[in-house]
């Protein structure tokens, strides 16, 4: 764009000059020495060349916040989950996001029924995850409350990969989700998210791919 503008200015500068010289050439041939002020006024645009500098404006493309909700860990119950979210808005469509969340899982039904069997220690029941994802704002829009207020909103899809630390093991984890972001102001947003965290573990004997669904609400701040 900058070069575009520069080009525009250059052509604005060069074109009249070229026209002027050729016009002068022609007028010199026909009227020998006539300055032709009328033509001059028509073809030289009244533009001043401006210097260019950076605008001083605060950019708010980063988003930081917290969330809380429920997460289901297959075989290990559904429990509260809380975490942190950091995002960078690359364009109006795309954003990249890093999440960190923790939850504590419960005993499996098998452990409860058998009475004495214990698969994991208390520490091992803690599950933490992080992921790096790319999101796409699918349906930007506005939400109206009465006839006075309108709030901007986005419905987004997001996918990425990360790691889950569960039962003293690291598990490579894919995540996939949809979310809704409502801008309470330009810099405060309220989120509603549903995510699926997919990983493989062998805690119950054999390798098993599990889907762990999470639904949470969050608040974020742009800076």
């Amino acid at each position, binding site marked *: 764009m900058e070069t575009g503008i520069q080009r525009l200015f250059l052509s604005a500068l060069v074109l009249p000059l070229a026209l002027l010289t050729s016009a002068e050439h022609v007028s010199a041939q026909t009227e020998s020495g006539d300055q032709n002020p009328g033509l001059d006024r028509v073809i030289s645009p009244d533009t001043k060349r401006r210097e260019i500098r950076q605008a001083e404006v605060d950019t708010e493309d980063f988003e930081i916040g917290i969330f809380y909700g429920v997460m289901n860990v297959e075989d290990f119950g559904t429990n509260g989950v809380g975490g942190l979210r950091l995002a960078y808005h690359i364009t109006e469509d795309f954003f990249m996001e890093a999440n960190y969340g923790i939850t504590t899982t419960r005993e499996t039904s098998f452990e409860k029924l058998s009475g004495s069997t214990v698969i994991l220690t208390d520490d091992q029941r803690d599950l933490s995850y992080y992921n*790096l994802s790319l999101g796409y704002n699918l349906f930007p829009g506005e939400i109206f409350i009465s006839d006075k207020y309108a709030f901007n909103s986005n419905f987004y899809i997001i996918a990425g990969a990360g790691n889950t630390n569960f039962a003293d093991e690291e598990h490579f984890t894919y995540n996939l989700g949809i979310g809704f972001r409502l801008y*309470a102001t330009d810099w405060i947003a309220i989120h509603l998210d549903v995510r699926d965290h997919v990983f493989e573990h062998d805690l119950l004997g054999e390798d098993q791919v599990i889907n762990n669904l999470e639904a949470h609400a969050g608040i974020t701040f742009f800076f």
Partner: protein
Amino acid sequence: MNLTHDAEHFNKGQAPGMKTRVFLNRITATIAIGTALLLMCQTASAEDEISDHERATVDTSYIDMRTGPGRGYPIFYAIEQDEIVELIKRRTDWVKVRTRRGKTGWAHVSQMEETFGADGKQLSFNHANKDEYLARRWEIGFNGGDLEGANALGATLGYRFTQNLTAELKLSQATGQFSDSKIGSIAVMHQPFPEWRVSPFFIMGTGIIDTSPDTTLVQTEDRSDTSLLVGAGAYIYMNRRFVLRLEYNNYQVLTSRDENEEVNEWKLGFNVFF
């Protein structure tokens, strides 16, 4: 209003109607509290807007003002030539502006470049294109791939201090069938031809590699070793702020045993710059 009216009409003379009404009241109360919170946020933001923002004078026939920072938001106002606007903030390629009459909305940077500041100088807004890519300072990236058969995932932070040289912090985690590893490195990256669309690079660095074998299989201790890294790859400029990055890294792990270990890593990811 409509909702309550309909509900009353519907429940006239019915005993279970009470329950519905209580339920409706509860919903209305919840919505009211939510709205109150939202409105409080709005007032709070209205108060903090007394400040010394840059002022820009429109130097083109008009600038479209939209209700939100996106191309789909409706245009509700046209800022006229010679009108002065305050630049409140910027998000991605949109600038939030306020006119003297108090109209507030979002204008695209490409239109905002046809304005000049109080000093008479034309204003420019960095926006994501190839020129901006070539002049970038900071970049962050996410990547994924393979580290000796294990799934590897990583993030990078780079600072480009000359046209060809970038200092980089790399964090990577690999989860495999037999062992997991975490690698943290600092490296220097050299791009001999930064202006090429597909631009090769070479990288050298050092770091620490933490390896923990899978406990359900083998009982060995976790170890932490110094590693040296050499690698090569390519930057492929896509568009806007996106750069695709393909890379191969070779780590020499300086173990306490007699032999050093060699680890190969292949990765594909994207970087964004700002």
